[in-house]
């Protein structure tokens, strides 16, 4: 049997960098959760990273995520005791034992924090997540695409307030969860879509080790931007300067758009990225260059470091990357849950590989 992989405090920087890449601008700034996870690992020890097949079949997998506004998470790191309260409540309600923690969302802070939660709970972390990226709404998870019901949703806030919900479906879980989160100051830990090792088709496998690898590549490469493009199999949409940042917060979401004005080879081009916590759609004129559920990340041109939507600033020099999502999001059910229409768009989804081909066609 292969040596089980163990996450140590030394892995966190690379993991955080990779999670920021998969965060597509959202999922929150990773720096706060990085510190919290680091404190947890140093205090409670390293965390085994395990595939689903290694878990006892009668155990529960606890998918965890912070919900709320990214700005708030940066300011309010949490009590650190939220995960313990969530486990206790889940075990009390189900009468079953939790055997592993899973990141509900690998993108952004929610990809990093579960390592610390697992350390605090003395549990392994599952090498999987529910998105393969970041999404703004909690029904936008692979478990929902696979037809699982949220059943029990547990919310714990930084003050220790704990709620358990039995919503009729994932959309209601989102609505109720969001309302409680706002009451808690726009930040809360949530456990939902409890899984068992039998739910093999309900998750995106290998996401933690992939994020770790992408982070490592980005940190060690001589030409970080090129290395990142290669590691992700991404397409570079434009390189230029951020000209307009029009952002707004509405019902707990950062919404708005930014415009990148091309420089160098891209001189004269203007790319507009629309965002709702995450980067959703990249437009050039009336044409969609890339769209949810495919991934769009804005990177610092010099360093390749991804920039979160709330950190986008006038004058930054950036390169916009896009790459394909996990295949489950391209199924009819996946597109219904997190395709353009789920975000209020009317355009039809076209895989980012195809729009690239069309663009080259147009230039010929």
């Amino acid at each position: 049997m292969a040596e089980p992989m163990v996450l140590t405090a030394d892995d966190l920087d690379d993991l955080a960098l990779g999670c920021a890449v998969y965060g597509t601008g959202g999922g929150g700034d990773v720096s706060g959760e990085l510190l919290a996870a680091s404190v947890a690992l140093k205090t409670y020890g390293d965390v085994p990273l395990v595939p689903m097949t290694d878990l006892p079949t009668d155990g529960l997998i606890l998918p965890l995520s912070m919900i709320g506004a990214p700005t708030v998470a940066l300011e309010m790191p949490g009590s650190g005791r939220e995960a313990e309260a969530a486990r206790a409540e889940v075990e009390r309600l189900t009468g079953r034992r939790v055997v592993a923690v899973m990141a509900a969302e690998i993108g952004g802070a929610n990809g990093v924090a579960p390592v610390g939660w697992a350390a605090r709970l003395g549990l392994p972390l599952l090498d999987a997540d529910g998105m393969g990226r970041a999404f703004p709404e909690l029904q936008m998870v692979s478990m929902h695409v696979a037809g699982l019901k949220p059943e029990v949703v547990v919310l714990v806030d930084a003050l220790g307030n704990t709620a358990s919900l039995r919503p009729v479906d994932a959309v209601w879980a989102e609505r109720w969860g969001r309302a409680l989160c706002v009451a808690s100051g726009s930040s809360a830990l949530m456990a939902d879509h409890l899984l068992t090792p039998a739910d093999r088709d309900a998750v995106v496998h290998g996401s933690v080790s992939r994020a770790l690898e992408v982070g490592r590549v980005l940190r060690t490469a001589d030409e970080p931007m090129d290395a990142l493009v290669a590691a992700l199999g991404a397409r570079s949409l434009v390189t230029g300067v951020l000209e307009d940042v029009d952002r707004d917060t509405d019902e707990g979401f950062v919404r708005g758009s930014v415009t990148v004005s091309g420089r160098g080879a891209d001189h004269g081009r203007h790319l507009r990225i629309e965002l709702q916590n995450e980067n959703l759609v990249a437009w050039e004129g009336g044409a969609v260059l890339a769209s949810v559920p495919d991934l769009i990340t804005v990177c610092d041109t010099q360093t390749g470091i991804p920039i979160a939507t709330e950190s986008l600033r006038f004058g930054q020099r950036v390169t916009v990357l896009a790459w394909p999502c996990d295949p489950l999001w391209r199924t009819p059910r996946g597109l219904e849950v997190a395709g353009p229409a789920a975000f209020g768009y009317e355009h039809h989804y076209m895989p980012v590989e195809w729009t690239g081909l069309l663009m080259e066609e147009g230039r010929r």
Partner: protein
Amino acid sequence: MTRHPSSRLRIGIDVGGTNTDAVALDARDRLVARAKRPTTDDVTGGMRAALEAVLAELGERSRDVRAVMLGTTHATNAVAERQGLARVGVLRIAGPVADAVPPLAAWPSDLYGKVVAGVAGVGGGHLIDGHPVAPLDIEAVKRFLGEVAGRAEAIAVTSVFGPVHPEHELRVAELVRAELGTAVRVSMGHQMGALGLLARENSTVLNAALGPAIAVVTAALSRVVTDHGLDAATYFAQNDGTLMEAAHADRFPVLTIGSGPSNSLRGAALLTGRSDAIVADVGGTTTDLGVLVDGFARESAAGCVIGGVQTNLSMPDVLSIAYGGGTVVHDARVGPDSVDRAITTRALVFGGDTPTLSDAGVLAGRIALGDRDRIADRRDGGAAARLKTAVEDFDTELSHAVSLVSHGRRDQPVIAVGGAAGLVPDTVGGHAVERPRNADVANAVGAAIALVGGEHETVVPAGSGRREALQEARATAVERAIERGADPDDVSVVRIREVPLSYGGRRSIRVTVKAVGRLADPGLPPQTAADYE
């Protein structure tokens, strides 16, 4: 006869690890006097010597000096060397909502040991919507102040969402005055800028710790100006390349950190007339590489790290390598230690016994310094070979660092400035190297041309009213810069920061606008073409 307006002078001073430089510029930014003196242990001596030398060179014109701008690495050094720092009582007001990361969790242990007189988290703070996390636990605050009384020279207080709801921090400041007296300074997180509790808390504690270090410099500066009967305003250069009135430096010493890189970049721009370039500032201990974009320092996206501590302060994006003029050449390695300002006694070319990178530069024919023959006098088996290798090591490291900051683009020149600029070879990794006149005093030049900034922070509605409100915020920042002495013809908005604030239905954005402009001379009419005749 009225004096010609361009007779008004500004003096820029740069206190470096090795030398203290001073320059006088006229109203058209022409360098009219310069001096370089060794930095002294007390800072004051070197600063006074350099300033007096420039005043002497100016002669009668010294009465035209209207402003003295000081850029000093004093605060940076104090943190880096863990010296001259105040002991700080660190108070976090957040109830349980930030326990996951204790205060100063990521601080290097030696710095923590030097600075921290005590740490406490007390009940209080607010959620983003203004709902209190808990009422401020005044008894706990008093208990903490009692514990650190007599040991803490300053108190740093940071509350969760303090920048939006500062009242608990302000209340603690009152309590400190009542319990510990006015001699104990209070540094408050909400004055240290943006949301992001941990980095803001770090900046607040460093700011508290730096009080004594900056007070020494402030006192020295005002004494020199008074002693010479100058009718001149005094300023400190700040991390963002703008000026702070010296009277403010006591309250915000941490903002003087990082003025050096800004000044060297801006100075290099003026001396070469270039607005886009890579600048290599070769000092006594390090070579600092920065990037000039449209005449300004490229800022790093993240807050700067000082002495191993993550802050929320914006700074020029600088890459430092441990090679400077005073870097010691050991048998098996170069540096990272430096003889610093002892170079004039310890370097071989000055008759000392320590081989330095400057000796290596002299031997390689790059710089003329001291007595080249003294190296030969001391030459034993491997000494010359070691010095030769040291220059090659420097070139390799420098070339690598330049390629990192330029991201492989070779179309920009490298401007070499700083006291040991001569060490830089004629080309670095394919980049042509420029050495402007007065490159060795570029930092002082940069200080002398530092800009006046005006900042305005407000909450504007999101959505439809945003553009109009932003326009108004920009206008206010511009007005403030002008009020603080910026030239109305030169002010422009250089930074707009928007932080979405509202949750649960209310829609607003916290906006910070920064405008900067050249320091206008109150007696100086707007410049016209005639001034240049």
